[in-house]
């Protein structure tokens, strides 16, 4: 076999601009998705704490359903149902909603990890409910959730390849396309892997730093 062709640096360089362009899409999707996930996740976590079963029971069902359904299927369904919504919007919204269901768990854990004494001190100081949440509970809970948020950002980042199914050319698809045209898959996909690593490793270091600082 012609082993000289296993790795071709020229190809690896050639694909790089395409990949970097895809990477910027990937990062946009991740950032936008993460904004939705972190805000919506918080609202879900808060809504789940209301005593009203009329709200929590259906909400829990929907959240569980989204969590246990493959992301790919959700993307395709929404893409085909809401045909007037551009693909990339479907992309980050579905990513965001999907991960919001995970994030709500992180928030829940973060809220529950705030010691009960904090609630009681707030009551003893006669603070109103809303003020207690805003000034005491959430600042502490959100501190606890930062590492979880970071980890989900990394994982969302690496799930953006699913967006290929709805025609969003992020990094993985850019690599695939290059491969499909040239069949230099090894170079293209290896570079994709390295770029993933180049972004997710520093992020994960950052998250670890936070974990240690918050521990």
């Amino acid at each position, binding site marked *: 076999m012609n082993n000289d062709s296993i790795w071709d640096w020229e190809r690896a360089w050639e694909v790089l601009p395409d990949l970097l362009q895809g990477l910027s899409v990937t990062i946009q999707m991740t950032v936008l998705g993460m904004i939705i996930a972190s805000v919506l996740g918080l609202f879900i976590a808060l809504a789940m704490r209301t005593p009203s079963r009329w709200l929590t029971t259906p909400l829990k069902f929907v959240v569980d359903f989204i969590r246990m359904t493959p992301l790919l299927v959700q993307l395709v369904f929404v893409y085909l149902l809401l045909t007037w919504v551009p693909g990339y919007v479907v992309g980050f919204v579905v990513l965001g909603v999907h991960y919001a269901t995970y994030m709500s768990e992180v928030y829940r854990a973060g809220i529950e990890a705030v*010691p009960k*004494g*904090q609630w*009681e*001190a707030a*009551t*003893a*100081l*006669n*603070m*109103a409910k809303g*003020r207690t949440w805003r*000034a*005491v509970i959430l*600042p*502490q809970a959100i*501190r606890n959730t930062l590492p979880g948020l970071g980890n989900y950002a990394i994982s969302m980042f690496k799930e953006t390849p699913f967006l290929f199914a709805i025609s969003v050319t992020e990094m993985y698809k850019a690599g695939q396309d290059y491969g499909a045209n040239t069949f230099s898959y090894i170079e293209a996909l290896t570079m994709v892997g390295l770029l993933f690593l180049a972004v997710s490793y520093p992020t994960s270091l950052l998250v670890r730093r936070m974990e240690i600082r918050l521990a």
Partner: protein
Amino acid sequence: MTNTSGDVPAIEFRDVDKRFGDNVVLDGLNFSVPQGQRVTLIGPSGSGKTTILRLLMTLEELSGGLILIDGDPYTHEYKGEKWVAVPEKRRRVVRNRVGMVFQQFNLFPNMTVLENIIESPVHVLGKSKADAIADAERLLEKVGMSEKRDFNTNQLSGGQQQRVAIARALAMDPEILLLDEVTSALDPEIVADVLDVLREIAETTDITMLLVTHEMQFAREVSDRVLMFDKGQIVEEADPETMFTNPTHDRTKEFLKAVLGG
């Protein structure tokens, strides 16, 4: 708004019941604390001392009976023929008269020392921020924590945290102060500091105090009356001198022997 006639007790428990599931903790408890009196609750673990303070602070719901602050029904009231919970709005009005210091301090770690103290004066009482800060600084002075004003609470030792917690409770200008074993999470040598602060407060103010403590020496010095609790009942009630030197009830004798070291 406040009924300050000398005859009305600051705190009154009327037939108070408290159950946790099947566990009856308080069963028809009656007692009252006159304005400005300092009352210490003693009793074995699990006898319900903490529960009394928590009920007063509305951290727990009553199972039956009434609690009155300055003669106002505070948590529940009879309306027509029925038990009705006092709406949160009215509770909040009364609750401003009550402050509590916890065993575990419960400072807010996301705020500095100063922010902890001014939070409620500003946002609950509606004081101006400048006033609140001025008051807070005076209180910090009093508890000997002036230099730590802008520290994070977790940069403080336990004793320091507890002193800030006391200042925080006092910043609300309470008429009634509840203290639940405020020294038992502290290192033995530091306890004295905190007790000194409390002693000074007892001497310089006329706040009504209801305290749970195992520091018998302190209880003796500071309180006007000691209530011995057991199984959710007051088994003995006396001035501290009598209680500690000459208890009448067997359960009290036994308890004091165990605690004071026999």
